[in-house]
């Protein structure tokens, strides 16, 4: 091939790579545009405060679903954060042990399990024995999805703590647990909180595992032993319904979801960047 031809091939191939970027960003822009356009116009005060109206009656909102989502996330965090954080600390402290690599591997496997399968597992453990859908079962399912994310981010960020701090504490005669709880964890705390934010962002948009754990509820409920509404399941129900007013509300719900997730992930990203700058020598 002549040099000229090779240069042309190179230019074309480089151009195609740029096209690939555009092809991926186009749907992103397209989706965000529609969510904002359809969602923002459907959002109003009643959407946040009122309850779903019966079929055919316009108006109403997702007040109960918003509260339900918050409760579900709270329950999930209550279950996943202690396990995830302590597991992550263990992996960072004993990073080379065989047990740690097995657990790391298990966390990766758990991270790849489809959320619908997690839902079946939660159904078998938390719904079937009591024969009732409940917020607790939903929180359990979401918690299972949070755990691997919390584990990996906690481990990564505890590792970022300069080793001089740990060595200093140990040299002063501190025991391992003392060094961890009084020196390392406080230093890594912003990072650990970030990990929790990232995990929250991941589960806030989950629908599949809630379909048959927390189910849905058209009424106001904060009882965690009863079925509870959630934004995602509500959006799903409304989206596949034949009513225009419900479609409008589904867009509003989607808009709210995207906003929540964007804010969480931007805050987390900024926090990680600050942390990395702080720990750079």
């Amino acid at each position, binding site marked *: 091939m002549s040099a000229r031809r090779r240069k042309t*091939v*190179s230019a074309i191939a*480089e151009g195609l790579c*740029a096209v*690939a*970027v555009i092809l*991926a*960003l186009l*749907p*992103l822009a*397209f*989706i965000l545009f*529609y969510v904002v356009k*359809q969602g923002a116009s459907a959002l109003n005060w009643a959407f946040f405060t009122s309850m779903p109206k019966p079929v055919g009656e316009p108006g109403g909102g997702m007040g109960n679903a918003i509260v339900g989502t918050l409760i579900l996330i709270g329950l999930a965090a209550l279950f996943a954060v*202690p*396990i995830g954080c*302590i*597991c992550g*600390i263990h*992996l960072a*402290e*004993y990073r080379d042990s065989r047990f*740690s690599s097995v657990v790391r591997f*298990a*966390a*990766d*496997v*758990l991270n*790849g*399990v*489809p*959320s*619908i*399968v*997690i839902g*079946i*597992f939660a159904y*078998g453990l938390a719904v079937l024995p009591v024969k009732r859908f409940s917020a607790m079962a939903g929180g359990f399912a979401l918690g299972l999805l949070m*755990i*691997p994310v919390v584990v990996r981010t906690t481990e990564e960020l505890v590792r970022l703590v300069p080793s001089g701090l740990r060595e200093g504490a140990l040299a002063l005669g501190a*025991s*391992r647990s003392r060094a961890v709880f009084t020196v390392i964890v406080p230093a890594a705390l912003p990072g650990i909180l970030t990990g929790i934010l990232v995990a929250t962002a991941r589960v806030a*948009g*989950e*629908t*599949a595992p809630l*379909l*048959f754990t927390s*189910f849905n509820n058209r009424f106001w409920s904060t009882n965690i032993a009863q079925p509870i509404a959630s934004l*995602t399941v509500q*959006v*799903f129900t409304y*989206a*596949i319904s034949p009513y225009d007013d419900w479609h409008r509300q589904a*867009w509003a719900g989607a808009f709210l*979801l*995207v906003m929540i*997730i*964007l804010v969480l992930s931007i805050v987390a*990203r900024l926090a990680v960047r600050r942390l990395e700058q702080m720990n750079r020598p």
Partner: protein
Amino acid sequence: MRRSADDRLFRLTTGAFAAMVLVIVVGIGIELTRQSMLSIQKFGWSFWTGRTWDPVAGEFGALPFIWGTLYSSLLALLLSAPIALGIAIFISELSPRFLRQPLAYLTDLLAAIPSIVYGLWGIFVLVPIVRKLELLTPEPLRRLPLFHGPPLGVGMGTAALILAVMVVPFSSSVAREILKNVPSAQREAAYALGATRWEAIKVAIGYGKTGIIGAIMLGLGRALGETMAVTMVIGNNPQVSLSLFAPQYTMAAVIANEFTEAADELYLHALIEIGLLLFVITIVVNLASRLLIWSTKKRAAELVVLASPATKEEIAA
């Protein structure tokens, strides 16, 4: 002495929490098997080859769902792999420095959008567009099995399109990392031999080939288990068909749609058995992908260490 006892206690307690993660993974496998026993015993292998899904008659064959999951995921991969690779190359090799971070962030954003939002957008925006395209398909093409059937808009093609968009960020972010880990000596050597920019990139891709295949498989793992968006656009009709226009069904979608309706125990167990297979398939795909990614990274790291020990710290950082 006290200190070492204290250390042991700390190791054991935190270790117990870590062990829970293991217990959960093993527990999922056991629980899914236990809960699908009825169907496993009744149907055996014929469950995977049967084409009839008739809950009323108590007859369950999962082939259409397995077909739908595999076909939609492979189609999605066909679309997403070149795009993901192109993005990874652009961000890591071609893009001006100031654009790198923002572009990486924007592509990652595709992964942050919830599946349900993709589905909503799919129903109300993408399906009408696809329906128009289907109507525009010329008659001779329509005779091919690939484009057979009435133009509904919902169906295999739409599902594959949405899936492709959803898995691009997973493949591209790993492929990006792999390319970043390719020792720069590889590219420099190519340039020294008079290679053009694209030829040097091809050398880098060749070096990271295994890892890039791993990155694409990671996307496959995501596509196989994707539920909501697919459920909302694929049409939910259990049939084995090559047609992109045909409404079909996937394993995840049938679980999502029918789980709460499963009135009798056998029906429920049949659905859970589908979940069990999905669990096993995704684990195998994810493991294979991790293994490929890990071996490439390790190879790259070793080579750099050999070349210059001083850069070892840089790799660790």
